Each structure stands twice: as structure tokens, then as C-alpha cells.
């Protein structure tokens, strides 16, 4: 028994030492001169020439702001073709930008599949925090990448990234991005694409569904992953706020099953969403009228124009698989957009949540 006891104790000590060594080894980077983990958010500055001039201009402006010095615009190919240069320090920067955008736009007819890149003085493609992907007026499509370098000794497993659009009290939230689980091996570097679309109508509905008087829009950033071969993990949720403005006047909400009216005596500044001065959106039997100007302030009215409830009217259209909406912005011509099935379902869900929250 004594020998067995001695052996068992030795085994126990060896296990304890092994666990301590395992934990310590996992906490210390393989190369002590490196950070254990490095994160970089950004995507390479590469754009299709088919993008609208407005999108190209926005992207180029953001890219120039994210980098220093003079940047050169090249059309991709073998060899590359010089398009122009951009120097934000130059007083004539706006002219440079317009010229470059016009030149890129010129390729639309001759080479619609072509792409342009932005390079620095070393001819290396520069990066920007995020890139707008050209889409219609109702959708904001953004692309970026999170690049994670794992200098730790064990793999980071099941890295998941999610993005939610929320109102202030969390009564409405819907997921706009869900990444695929990713594993980053020790010493490895992985870029996780962050490619998401925000339906602007849904975003406005989320914003007005809040219970406070701030009219702020929230973005939930959900990151989770496992370490130590899955023995430990973390799930973090950060809530970011896009403020609509400071010290806003009181918001009045009048909610009935067939009519929702949200009003505020002051114009809402653009923050995350570029709000038009005047918009009328028709979704089947439901009309959404939005005003946002200095004279009348901000208002959104969702109305069926009959005793039919808003949710029933929208559900009826959803069941008929008609996801189209007609939009008239600032008194312009009517445009019809097709929401996808998921976005339409999300819109119904947001309105139902608003009804429940206020009831």
C-alpha cells in the first residue's frame, strides 16, 4: 500500500505540474517580443469600376483619411494602368478626387469588370477601416475584415463574430452579420470577413422603437471564442451607440394597431443613417411617411389608412411573397426596391416588438 500511495502521489504531483505548465505555456506568447494577440480591422482598397460615382467618392475619401501621404489610383491588370493620384494635403484635393472618380467612371462602358486599387509610394495596396459596397438607396452594404494574429501557443477555436442592430432597451434587436466559426492556429493569421447589409428602413424603425428620448441607434458586437483546447472560452458583447444628437426635445409616440406616429420638434442630425428631408414609403397597404427638416422637425407615421392592423397588412404581403417597397425621396420619382425575405420578416418583427413594448 505504501508503494502504491507513493506512486499515486508522484502521479498527482506530475499532473499538477503538467496543468500548471499547460496554463503558463498558454498564457505566454511563443515569441516574447510579439503581442499575444493582434487585431487589425480593415480591408484592402480595391473597388469595382461599376460602383456609382458617389460610392467611389466616399470610399476613396475614407481611404485617404485612413492613410498618410500621396496615394496612387491604378487600374488592376498586367500591367497596371495609372489613373491618378490623391493627396489630402493638397488644396486641390477635391478636384483631384472628382477627376479620379470621373476617370474610373469612364471604364464603366469599356471595361465594366475592371477594378481599381489604391497604392502607397511603395506600390503596396493600402487598407481602409471599411469599404462601402455599392447598393441601392435602401441598403447600406459594408465590407471589412478583422485580421487576427495568434502568437499564443495554442489555437484559438470557434471564433465567431456577430453584429446586431438594437434599440436602446434591447426590446428590438436583429442580427445583421453572423460569421462562420473560424480556428486560428498558433502562429497563424486569419482574416474574418465582415460583410453586412443594413436595410435603412429597418434601421429607422429600430431607432424609433427605443423607449428613451435620444433616438440613438445601437450596434451590438458579439465576439466569442475558445482557448486551451476548448477548456476555456469567452463570449463578449459590446454595445456601440450612434448618437442622433445631444439634448434632443421630447419624443412623442402614438401607437395604435393600425397607426404609429413618432414625432419630435427638432430635426435629427445624420449619424449612422443619412436621413432624407422627406420620404414616403409604400409597402402594400402600409404607408410610411417620414419628415426630417428644420421647420417641422422629425416625424415618422406608419399607417394602413384603414382598420386593418399594420402587422396584419405586412404579414399578408409577406405571405403573398411580395417583398417590394416603393420609395419616393425628397419629392423625386418613385423607385421600387425588393427587400429580401429575411429583411421583410425582420421589419414585421420590429413592428411587432414595438407594439408589444408599448402595450
Amino acid at each position, binding site marked *: *500500500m505504501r508503494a502504491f*500511495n507513493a506512486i499515486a502521489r508522484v502521479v498527482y504531483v506530475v499532473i499538477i505540474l503538467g496543468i500548471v505548465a499547460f496554463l503558463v505555456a498558454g498564457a505566454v506568447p511563443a515569441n516574447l517580443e510579439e503581442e499575444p494577440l493582434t487585431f487589425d480591422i480593415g480591408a484592402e482598397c480595391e473597388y469595382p469600376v461599376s460602383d456609382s460615382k458617389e460610392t467611389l467618392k466616399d470610399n476613396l475619401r475614407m481611404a485617404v483619411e485612413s492613410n498618410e501621404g500621396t496615394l496612387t489610383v491604378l487600374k488592376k491588370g498586367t500591367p497596371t494602368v495609372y489613373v491618378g493620384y490623391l493627396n489630402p494635403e493638397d488644396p486641390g484635393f477635391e478636384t483631384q478626387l472628382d477627376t479620379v472618380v470621373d476617370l474610373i467612371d469612364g471604364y464603366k462602358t469599356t471595361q465594366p469588370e475592371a477594378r481599381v486599387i489604391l497604392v502607397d509610394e511603395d506600390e503596396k495596396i493600402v487598407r481602409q477601416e471599411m469599404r462601402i459596397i455599392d447598393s441601392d438607396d435602401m441598403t447600406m452594404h459594408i465590407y471589412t475584415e478583422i485580421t487576427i494574429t495568434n502568437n499564443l501557443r495554442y489555437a484559438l477555436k470557434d471564433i465567431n463574430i456577430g453584429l446586431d442592430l438594437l434599440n436602446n432597451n434591447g426590446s428590438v434587436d436583429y442580427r445583421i452579420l453572423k460569421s462562420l466559426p473560424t480556428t486560428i492556429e498558433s502562429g497563424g493569421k486569419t482574416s474574418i470577413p465582415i460583410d453586412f447589409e443594413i436595410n435603412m428602413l429597418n434601421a429607422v424603425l429600430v431607432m424609433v422603437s427605443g423607449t428613451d428620448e435620444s433616438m440613438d441607434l445601437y450596434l451590438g458586437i458579439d465576439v466569442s471564442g475558445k482557448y486551451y483546447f476548448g477548456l476555456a*472560452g*469567452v463570449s463578449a458583447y459590446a*454595445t456601440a451607440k450612434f448618437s442622433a444628437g445631444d439634448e434632443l426635445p421630447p419624443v412623442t409616440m402614438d401607437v395604435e394597431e393600425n397607426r404609429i406616429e413618432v414625432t419630435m420638434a427638432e430635426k435629427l442630425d445624420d449619424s449612422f443613417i443619412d436621413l432624407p428631408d422627406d420620404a414616403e414609403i409604400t409597402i402594400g397597404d402600409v404607408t410610411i411617411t417620414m419628415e426630417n427638416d428644420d421647420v417641422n422637425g422629425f416625424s415618422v407615421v406608419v399607417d394602413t389608412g384603414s382598420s386593418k392592423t399594420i402587422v396584419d397588412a405586412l404579414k399578408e404581403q409577406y405571405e403573398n411573397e411580395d417583398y417590394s417597397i416603393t420609395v419616393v425621396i425628397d419629392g423625386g420619382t418613385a423607385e421600387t426596391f425588393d427587400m429580401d425575405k429575411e429583411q421583410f420578416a425582420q421589419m414585421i418583427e420590429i413592428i411587432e416588438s414595438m407594439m408589444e413594448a408599448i402595450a
Partner: protein
Amino acid sequence: MNYSSTLGEDLRFGSWGKGTLAVITSLFSIVILPLVLIYIVEGLITEMGLEEELLSVFDPMMEMIWRFAIYGLPVVALAFFKKSYDKGSKAKLLFNLISLAYSILWIYFIFDGGAMTISVDTSSLFTDGDFSVENIDAVLMLNGFIIVMIGLILFKMLLAFTSYGSNREKYMEKFNETKADREYVPRIKTTFGYDLKHGSAGRGLGSAILKLILIMVIPYLIIHYSELIIEALELDTEMVEIFDVVLDLLYRVAFYGMPLVFLAFFTKFYEKGNKAWLMFRIIGLLYTIVWVWLIFEMGEFVLPFDTGILFEYGEYAFDGNDILQLAILIIVVYLLLKTVAALLTFRGKRKRYLRKLEESDGNQYRN
């Protein structure tokens, strides 16, 4: 080993002293030290003016330490029973198993069931124009580690059985000895004069030599070769001044420690239970208090450097010197407790001393 004690018998063979010491040490390590740590960290954060930024980050850690301390109280109580019994005792095995089983619950409570939540208000930290990060909620998932720890506890339960099995024989020898002591009715008496003449010079000498080396030889060597030490360590002027104070301290350790060498000889010279042992033991402990008092210049000793420690509590402020005085006071209280323990030990061992004396040649002491 024919007779095997029952659990009931083993339960009566515990040591109050060992149990109390275990309670004190585990109370210190499980409750007092963590709470002091919380107090220090909170004090530092407040002193740096970072309450708003850091307290919410540290809150989950503080809560975890609180759970460690509060749910650790049963572990402190069980430490008494675990340590008061010897290895090989059925009572020790029982309390070891209870304590280990409770440890599983304890770990579960400490780590909040394996999912520790952390909430940090970041509204004042990350702001950029219209954009701000309001808060970060994180959940640390430690289920895997909890399972590993439970595995280790189960392994320790196995070790409790193997330890019991391998020490049972030895324990039974001690058990029978102690049982014999308890059942023994002294038929002899010894005088102080008799006890004074009966000791072991070998044991006494060993203890005296050890004390001589620790208390006198080592300090003497450091003092004697101080110049060489300063040179080897390349101490600057400020450090030399501190070193000089240390040398003075060592001088007092050696000079006033001389009586302790002699007392160590006489204390070990006699067996526990011998009246002479009790006398020298008590004199030794009381003189140790005087020795500590003399080393630290009768409470006038001042640290030769600024420790940078300053605790403020209301109108009171405590610096490094106050903490040193407190440490000296704790040592004195500890030595006084050891003096009381010496009296209890004497009482406990007296019967064995007399029994052995009687077994060896009791006729000459018989009443």
C-alpha cells in the same frame, strides 16, 4: 497490528493544537489575505483616481475573491478536523473526504458555475464624435477547467484512501501508545530535582549547535565579511547605509541570542513531560520575547528606507514602520500562545513520561 480502532475511537484522538493552528492558517490564507488584497487593490485604484475606469473591470475579480472567502469558511472549519487527526486515522479520512467533496461545490461557487460574467461600463472610455462604445459584457466560460479540477479532486480522494492505508499501521502504533497513556494511572511521582538530572545530552547538543549556527555563526560571518559583501554586491552609498542598519540588527541578534543557545540545549536535553523541560521551555519562550524586543531596540527601531506603504483609515495613517511594529506584536502574541501550548504539552506528555519511567524501572519511584 491486530486491533483496529473504530471511527468513534479515532474521533476522540485528535489534537486541538494542530486543529487550531490549521484553522488559523487557513483563515489567514482563505479569508484574511484575500480580503486584505481586495482592500489594497481598491485603495490603489482610488488613490490613482481610476475608480470610474477600473473598478467596474475589477468588480468581477473582487466578487470572485469574495466568493472564495465567504464560501471558503466551511473549508476553514473543516481544516480543523482535517489537521487535528493524524494520517491513518479513520476520522482524518472522513474529514478529508468531506472537505474534498465540499471543494467541488466551493470551486463551482467561486467560478459562478463555470460562467463568470464581467460587465464594464465603457461609455466614458471609447467615444469618438457621435460614436461611443457604451458597455462590454463578457462571459468567461470555464466549464472545461472546472471539470479538470473536479477530476483532480477525485484523484485527491483516491489519495486520501491510499494515504489512510499506508499510514494505518503507524497510526495504530501511536494510537495504542496514546491509549495506554490515557488509561495509565500514575503510581509514581518524580521531584523536580530528579527530573533535572535525567536528560539526553546528545539531543540537547544537536539543538544547541543548530541554534548556535543560526543565531550566532551566520550573523557573525555576515558582520565579519561585511566589507567583502559590500564590494561583491557593488552597493551604492544609500544601500551601504541600509546594510549598516542590517549589520547592527544582526549584531543584536547574535549578542542577545547567546542565552537562547543555552536554553535550546536544556530544552531539548529533557523529554516533554519532564518538569525541567517545562521550566526551560517557558524560560526559552519568554526570553525569546525579550530577545525580539531587544533586537528591535525596545520598540524604537525605525526602518532605514521608505517602504512606500501608506494605508489611511479615517484619521489614522499606517506606514511601513507601523506594519513592522504590528508584525513584532504578532510574533510576541504567537510566542505567548506557544508558552500556553507548552503547559498543555507538558500536561499531555506527563503521563507518558511517567509511564515510560515506571516501565523502565518504576520501583524506586513508587510511593
